[in-house]
């Protein structure tokens, strides 16, 4: 009896030890795919998460999203957390007609087919997988499969003990969250300055230059067209659009780096933009005072979202999920007949989605996925995208200034990168440094909200071309 109790307690302790993060730090799949940093990588990620938490709380860098992203990074990189939060990964074998032939973890499948499973190192794990694959290749038809066994016959995915974040991530995976965020943004946005000065829409288009310049840069760094598109959209300075496009392009592995880069640079707009704005404009141009905008009627504000949705829907349907929701949110606000819906869209809805979006994107920054050279490349390309976007807006601003006989201050062009309302505030601040009585904020809000439309349109164009 005493022996039985002792052995039971011993077994219980062994099981407990095996379930701790020290034993199950990183799923086998990542070890086989060359991840060699082990717990060290996760400790690096925990430090990075700590820095982001600090930046969000102490420096207020886009805290609404960065705090949740940073916490997601933190929680997923706790050794052993991945398989609890997302679930157990394994292989699913499917034949030509979609019939599932076998599904399970590598260990379970090896045991089921009487093969040797050894997880002592990356090499032995790879050997175990190779044994399984050659077994499946040999017995494919005997197992009842139709057609031949190819490399497309199996896929690695979460198959067992699916955790909370497996389900929450579906909101990102099925691209539900970004359009819902756009609904909230639409309900918070006043398109009045844009309707009063429609030319500012062109500034929103010019500021998308960064997206396409970065696309070329990403191609030269060896990224494929879809990955290059996902990275380039960072230049749109629009987090939900970046997440939406990345998912649409099937680049979920790049998602954490892209989201972190996009939101970090949006927070760094006051640092990145002013030197470029000053470099490209003369003192005389920065001193230009713009005429007061005309008042916009309620009718115009109500018809505007309907026109935008209709025009974009006909010409570029791929941009509709984002722009349609943005315009629905705006219509809800401007119609004035559904104050409760308007309030919910701009408060509760957007706040709830922001929490879910932030934390699920953060949990994708798992050490084996995030700690790669390509993350640094994405961060570098992101700053290029932002800089060229700012330059594009300012340069078109200069052109419009010339064409209008000096009535447009080119600084407002920089606000075309979206990053609402930060970029508009930066245009105002740079203008007021030259003349404290020059108020550019309302004029800059036009290109600023045009930038949101512009980046969604650019995303739609990239989806139409490459998705």
């Amino acid at each position: 009896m005493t022996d039985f109790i002792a052995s039971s307690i011993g077994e219980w302790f062994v099981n407990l030890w095996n379930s701790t993060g020290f034993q199950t730090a990183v799923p086998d799949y990542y070890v086989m795919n060359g991840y060699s940093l082990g717990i060290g990588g996760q400790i690096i990620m925990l430090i990075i998460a700590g820095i982001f938490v600090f930046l969000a709380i102490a420096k207020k860098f886009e805290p609404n999203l960065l705090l949740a992203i940073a916490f997601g990074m933190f929680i997923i990189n706790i050794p052993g957390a991945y398989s609890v939060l997302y679930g157990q990964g394994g292989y699913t074998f499917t034949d030509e007609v979609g019939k599932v032939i076998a599904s399970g973890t590598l260990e379970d499948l090896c045991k089921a087919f009487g093969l040797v499973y050894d997880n002592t190192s990356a090499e032995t794990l790879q050997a175990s997988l190779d044994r399984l694959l050659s077994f499946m290749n040999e017995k494919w038809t005997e197992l009842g499969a139709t057609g031949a066994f190819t490399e497309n016959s199996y896929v690695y995915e979460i198959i067992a003990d699916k955790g909370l974040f497996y389900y929450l991530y579906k909101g990102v995976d099925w691209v539900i969250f970004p359009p819902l965020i756009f609904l909230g943004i639409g309900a918070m946005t006043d398109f009045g300055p844009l309707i009063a000065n429609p030319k500012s829409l062109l500034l929103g288009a010019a500021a998308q230059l960064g997206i396409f310049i970065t696309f070329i840069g990403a191609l030269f760094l060896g990224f494929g067209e879809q990955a290059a598109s996902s990275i380039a959209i960072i230049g749109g300075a629009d987090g939900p659009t970046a997440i939406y496009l990345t998912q649409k392009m099937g680049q979920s592995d790049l998602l954490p780096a892209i989201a972190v880069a996009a939101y970090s640079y949006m927070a760094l707009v006051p640092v990145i933009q002013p030197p470029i704005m000053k470099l490209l404009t003369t003192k005389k141009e920065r001193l230009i005072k713009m005429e007061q905008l005309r008042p916009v009627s309620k009718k115009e504000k109500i018809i505007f979202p309907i026109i935008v949705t209709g025009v974009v829907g006909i010409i570029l349907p791929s941009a509709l999920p984002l722009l349609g929701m943005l315009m629905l949110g705006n219509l809800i606000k401007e119609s004035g007949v559904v104050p409760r819906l308007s309030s919910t869209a701009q408060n509760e809805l957007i706040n709830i989605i922001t929490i879910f979006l932030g934390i699920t994107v953060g949990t994708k920054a798992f050490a084996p996925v995030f700690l790669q050279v390509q993350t640094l490349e994405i961060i570098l390309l992101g700053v290029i995208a932002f800089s060229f976007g700012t330059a594009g807006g300012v340069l078109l601003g200069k052109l419009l200034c010339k064409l209008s006989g000096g009535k447009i201050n080119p600084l407002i062009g920089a606000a075309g990168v979206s990053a609402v309302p930060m970029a508009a505030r930066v245009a105002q601040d740079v203008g007021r440094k030259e003349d404290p009585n020059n108020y550019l904020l309302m004029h800059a809000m036009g290109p600023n909200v045009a930038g949101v439309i512009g980046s969604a349109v650019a995303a739609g164009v990239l989806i139409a071309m490459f998705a």
Partner: protein
Amino acid sequence: MQLYLLLSTSAADKWSTGGITTLLGLGMTFIMLALLVCFIHLLRYILNFLEKTTPAFKEKIYGIFRKKNNKGLESNISNGTNNNTTEELVAENNIDNETMEVIEQSVKQYISLSADDGKPHDRIKIVSVKEVNND
């Protein structure tokens, strides 16, 4: 196009892929937003046009209804069944200046919020307030 992009690997191919994408992408974005600029301008003209023509149209319609209502009213009076509420004037301009100002501000605010013509409404002046008993 897709197949061509997949096959492109050399620097020249990357330049051409990037160049084509930039031209098409940026061009498409500009065209789309330029179209919206046109539509927004057009919208303003349409609304202005409607604003000018609608009052005349409304007047025409109201005219028809007015004629009908007048006929109805005349027949009611002849039948002795005029049930219009009679309002007995209780007081006029016996309200202090402060209350008058509050009323004036409220009316201005209400009109500027509810008006959709975009014109300023700050020239309204309340000159008389009547207190009536319409029980």
